[in-house]
């Protein structure tokens, strides 16, 4: 009996090990972590891996769900454009970046919607309160705003293949993370798609983005020692003003 259990455990360990290896090596991303320092201005994230020769791949970076409040402008009295409503969006990710290969860049929206990926996935998930008269119209405005901030985007022809043989091919892409990205845990998802547009496999890994150095210090001060932070900000501003006053004092006026 004991022998059987130990054999079973051994097999289980082997399966777990290979499953783990397969999962952790199904794709690679570099860097593993991103640090937001003083000169941070967005970052490049390299993602690469292998898929079956006949399949295609979609790479996405998704932020955690966020609750955000928005103002909607509308026409009032036929002349003025002003705020006509306030809405709360729940369940939309803070970031949604999707990178497509050439063969998936030019398919119809209807075909793409079959995959239930992209903005349709977010549309189905997001809750808007109070319920708008036209959710689709409001969601489109939301997308425009997020795309303008480069927090959302679907980028075509951005995944490339190499080392293609009869069995597998390698893919690689460079994801441009915007400077507006916030510290937190992000999910990188890689979808393998069959030629008849069915999801074959989804792999995922986390990407950690952290504040470091001076930005981390300022953020800590602002949120955890806010009164001291405010007073210091005022004192430093006054000293800067006095310093400039002294520098210019000896130079006399314009005459």
């Amino acid at each position, binding site marked *: 009996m004991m022998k059987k259990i130990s054999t079973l455990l051994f097999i289980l360990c082997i399966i777990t090990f290979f499953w783990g290896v397969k999962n952790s090596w199904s794709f690679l991303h570099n860097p593993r972590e991103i640090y937001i320092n003083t000169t941070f201005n967005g970052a490049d994230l390299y993602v690469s891996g292998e898929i079956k020769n006949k399949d295609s791949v979609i790479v996405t970076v998704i932020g955690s769900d966020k609750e955000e*409040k*928005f103002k909607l402008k509308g026409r009032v009295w036929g002349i003025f*454009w002003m705020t006509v409503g306030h809405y709360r969006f729940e369940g939309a990710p803070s970031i949604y970046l999707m990178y497509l290969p050439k063969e998936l860049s030019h398919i119809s929206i209807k075909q793409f919607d079959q995959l239930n990926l992209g903005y349709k996935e977010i549309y189905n998930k997001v809750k808007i309160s109070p319920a708008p008269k036209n959710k689709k119209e409001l969601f489109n405005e939301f997308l425009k*705003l997020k795309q303008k901030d480069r927090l959302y985007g679907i980028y075509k022809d951005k995944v490339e293949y190499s080392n293609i043989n009869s069995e597998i091919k390698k893919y690689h892409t460079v994801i441009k993370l915007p400077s507006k990205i916030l510290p937190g845990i992000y999910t990188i998802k890689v979808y393998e798609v069959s030629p008849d547009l069915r999801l074959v496999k989804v792999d995922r890994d986390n990407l950690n983005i952290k504040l470091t150095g*001076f930005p981390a210090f300022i953020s800590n001060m*602002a949120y955890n020692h806010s*009164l001291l932070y405010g007073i210091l900000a005022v004192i430093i501003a006054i000293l*800067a*003003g006095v310093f400039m006053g002294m520098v210019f004092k000896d130079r006399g006026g314009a*005459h």
Partner: protein
Amino acid sequence: MLYMYLPIAGNSVNVLLIVGLGVFVGLLSGIFGVGGGFLMTPLLIMFGIPPTVAAASDSNQIVGASTSGTLAHYRLGNVDIKMGMLLLIGGVIGGDIGVHVIKILKALGNADFLINITYVVMLGFVGGYMFIESLQSLKGGSVQTKPASSKESLYVKLMKSLPFQTDFQKSGVRMSALVPLFLGVFVGILAAIMGVGGGFIMVPVMVYLLRMPMHVVVGTSLFQILFTCINVTIMQAYSNHTVDFVLAVLLLLGSTIGAQFGTRIGKNLKGDQLKIILASIVLLVMLKMLYGLLARPDILLSYAGGH
């Protein structure tokens, strides 16, 4: 290009662009005695800074710029501390009243509409009046602000009948201490409703209602703005965590230098020249706001925050 990350705004900015913006607004501050918030905040929002962070960090930088400007004007004898203190006390009381007015307006419904309309009407009235009056003075060859007509107006009679008559030596006027106090309350209410420092309302009030000479107006306005912005910066940092010190320092680098040069430029301009330039800027801002009310925005949704 050198970029710097702003930890509270959660975005990075081009250092040269922000310092340059500081120089420009500092120049205006030094020349006209306005904080420049009515120009700086929309520009910062345009560069991707969240509205609440833009307004709060701008207050922080105005502290530096107005310290620099006030010192420069103080040396030139352009700061009426007595008048400034009364306006300041009134402004603080008015600010508190204004915050409550905003709450009532929000509860009643579309506060944004009232705020925007108040903004456009005030800017249009103040800018238009200053522009026409300065133009007439320039054409007539007048250098200083015209004194009241020889016949005593109702306004002058009323001023003389009020209690607590006080001499304001720097400004060269004698009036009741209640007048600047009351006008400070009025400007404070409007500033709180419109979400701005109020310098561009305070300056015309000092010129036309308090009858102060233009150069003293500029120095005294800066003195008053300095204390208002100290209060706003500390409150915003403490209550809302919206002061981005890195952004404020970058703006400060430019604005403190700009304020010094602005003071020297202002010194070389006549009172009416100063007024006509300020009036033109105020009218341009009014037209921009009016366009914003009349033209369809590209994106109908915007992030909620501030008012």
